[in-house]
């Protein structure tokens, strides 16, 4: 790629994750010449899709890897529940309907499914799991795209777009130290959100964003999102919102992925750096609550907290990637955690005193709750009294952001004046906020990416081949 010879193609796909590949494969299968630009190097290709592991789709009956049917009404009501209605219902229904039996489409492009993983049995009916996880899926898609003849370039970052009156003309691309131009008849923006762009996050969160950990790819800096918004795209989604969970504070700044999660919260207590509890750790099952804990920890001083369990509970949750900090007494543990020993002892004593003997049962919302304690612990509240005591430091870990560009049912970019762009399409995280305005539903980001990737690929090819 160099400045003198602009590359010409029919469909340009910007991005290299699930939505980008679905778009590229579909456009290529429709007969268009396709160039896919992935800004990450080959080893880190696939955006956040490389960290995923399952996809939710509508299916009429169970099969070898799904335990039962998942139909439109239930799917839609699940979505309405998690988003609290913040969704474009027309696009939501389109996503759900177009997802019907999508597994077969995926399989014929190299995807392989397996029965649910040991940590995600609660998704056994609704979500299909990829054998080997999301990176294996990406490997399969890249292999298929290559075989189809999609021109794939790695470490090729689109820096800017030339857009005239809502119509895409060319893209400025930097690759290997060179800057070049790519002309295309249609473009699909499938380049993710901006959650890896700490400076951008600071616009909404202030300096505390420095203490956030980005769970996924460092390449989701939101450059395309910004370019599109600056060129008249209509925004969607609350820019202040992001999906954030409490993860191990020792996780790397980027790309720690699934292993940095901690599932111990419901079985113990969580304290801030003042050694005080600040939220009901046993409010509901962990899969239903883990996504609020990122925000909760972000709201604490220095954006840090510590989960503490005792020996009774250490085997009740998935093993952690970093070892627990361990001590025989609570004050000793406090010293290791650099907390005030007296304050922590006081917190634990008060908590223990508030617990009542009951039938502890991690498999249901049991009757073990505290009395006269603020904040309360509603379930699984057992005294911390069996040494050794184990602690895990927590920090907010950002999964994705909600701000995106508005699209219509053809995945066309909507402009601020209400017109759709003739040849700009968007798919994946960059437009997921249309459908997932808040909250999260496991495996649904990939559903949106797959459905809209296919629509964008189909429509872009149709436009390019006109």
């Amino acid at each position, binding site marked *: 790629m160099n400045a003198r010879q602009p590359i010409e193609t029919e469909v340009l796909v910007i991005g290299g994750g699930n939505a980008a590949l679905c778009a590229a494969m579909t456009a290529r299968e429709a007969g268009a010449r396709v160039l896919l630009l992935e800004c990450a190097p080959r*080893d*880190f290709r696939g955006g956040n899709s*490389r*960290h995923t*592991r399952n996809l939710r789709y509508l299916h009429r009956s169970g099969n070898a890897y799904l335990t039962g049917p998942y139909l439109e009404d239930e799917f839609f009501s699940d979505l309405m529940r998690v988003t609290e209605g913040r969704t474009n219902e027309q696009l939501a229904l389109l996503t759900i309907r177009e997802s019907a039996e999508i597994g077969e489409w995926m399989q014929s492009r190299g995807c*392989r499914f*397996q*029965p649910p*993983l*040991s*940590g995600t049995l609660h998704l056994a009916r609704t979500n299909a*799991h990829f*054998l*080997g*996880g*999301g*990176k*294996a899926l990406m*490997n399969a898609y890249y*292999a298929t795209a290559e075989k189809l003849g999609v021109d794939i370039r790695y470490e090729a970052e689109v820096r800017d777009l030339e857009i005239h009156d809502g119509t895409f003309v060319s893209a400025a691309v930097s690759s290997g130290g060179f800057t070049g131009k790519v002309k295309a008849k249609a473009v699909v923006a499938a380049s993710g959100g901006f959650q890896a762009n700490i400076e951008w996050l600071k616009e909404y969160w202030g300096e505390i964003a420095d203490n956030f950990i980005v769970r996924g790819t460092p390449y989701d800096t939101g450059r395309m999102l910004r370019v599109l918004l600056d060129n008249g795209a209509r925004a969607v989604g609350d820019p202040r919102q992001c999906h954030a969970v409490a993860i191990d504070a020792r996780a*790397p700044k980027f*790309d720690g*992925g*699934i*292993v940095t*999660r901690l599932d111990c919260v419901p079985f113990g207590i969580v304290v801030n750096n003042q050694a005080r509890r600040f939220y009901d750790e046993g409010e509901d099952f962990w899969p239903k609550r883990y996504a609020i804990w990122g925000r909760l920890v972000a709201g604490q001083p220095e954006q840090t907290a510590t989960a503490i369990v005792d020996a009774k509970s250490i*085997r009740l949750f*998935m*093993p*952690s*990637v970093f*070892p627990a900090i361990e001590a025989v007494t609570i004050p000793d543990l406090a010293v290791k955690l650099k907390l005030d020993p007296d304050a922590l002892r006081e917190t634990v004593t008060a908590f223990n005193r508030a617990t009542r003997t009951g039938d502890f049962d991690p498999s249901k919302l049991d009757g073990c709750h505290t009395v006269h304690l603020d904040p309360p612990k509603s379930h699984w509240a057992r005294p911390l009294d069996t040494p050794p005591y184990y602690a895990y430091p927590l920090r907010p870990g950002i999964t994705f952001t909600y701000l995106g560009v508005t699209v219509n049912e053809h995945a066309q970019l909507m402009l601020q004046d209400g017109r759709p762009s003739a040849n700009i399409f968007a798919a994946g995280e960059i437009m997921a906020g249309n459908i997932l305005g808040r909250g999260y539903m496991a495996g649904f980001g990939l559903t949106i990416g797959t459905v809209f990737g296919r629509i964008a690929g189909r429509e872009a090819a149709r436009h390019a081949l006109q």
Partner: protein
Amino acid sequence: MLSSDLLKEAERVMTICNACRYCEGYCAVYPAMELRRTFADKDLKYLANLCHNCRACYYACQYAPPHEFDVNVARVFADLRLECYREFARPALLAGMFRRNGLAVGILTAAALVTVFLLLGIFQDSPVIFAAHSGANAFYRVIPYPLFILPFSVLVVCLSAVLLWSNISFWRKTGGKLGELLDPRANLQAIGDALRLKYLDGGGHGCNYPDERFSMLRRYFHHLVFYGFILCLASTTVAAAYHHFLQWPAPYPYLSWPVLLGTAGGLALLAGTAGLLILKKKMDPLPGAPRARGMDVGFLVLLFFTSFSGLLLLALRATPAMGILLAVHLAVVAALFVAMPYGKFVHALYRFVALVRNARERSRQ
């Protein structure tokens, strides 16, 4: 890497994997890992030998290098297996054979050839060696029957004893009681897993060998080697039975069981070893142990020449070349036997024992 560093690295990697578990659909290693929260040395040695190096987990891993977590289960387990082969070599005095195994096996083969030719030169007259022989006992006119049977009987007895010794040491050091090794149901399950090479199928589409693509080639070539080897053993056994019970000495006609079995086995071995050598040349070195290369290649080449010399002997047995070819074939077979407990062959033993343990663990769930 020192053995203790290697174990530390294996423990580090397994701890990451156990918090992830995305690979649990590929093979037996990950479900076995999930039964544990911590990984003692014996667990790691067991898991390493349960690993078939199908490499599916390496390419699927979001934490594979260059990710800072640097997770490469396929490599650390391959390195650890090599350490196990050394650690459980019996008598322990001979563990050094695993240091530069390719070279050691090469020297051993050369030594076997020199020995056989020296003996032949000393004890046999050249006209006999270079004459064309035919009819019953043709081979034994060049090398008398007792010189065939005695050294090989001693070799087979010693070999079996040494292999059993290594095997039991491995089983006990990885935490098993001797009686448990004989668990009939677990053995049956392990035999089935081994005969099908169940865990070289990467969960159904083959392993990622020699590169990132899924392929059944390695499994098929390995089948050719294994079943070719079994057919050759069967050929020898039938021939021994003919000799002892029917008083019908070698050589046998082309349309006889020993020749048919041996030819089929020999051809399968040739194709299988050649195929595996070609794949090995093309393979991605990252998810393997570079140190094991000499050992792997040495064993394949030795098997190839065993088969090649045998087939050549069959083809030219009526010509004056028979005497020399017979000596070469016997020397190569002897080298193969002597090298068995001190080379790549042992992978089969430890893998099998690991499969037995795995079958027991699973039946207890």
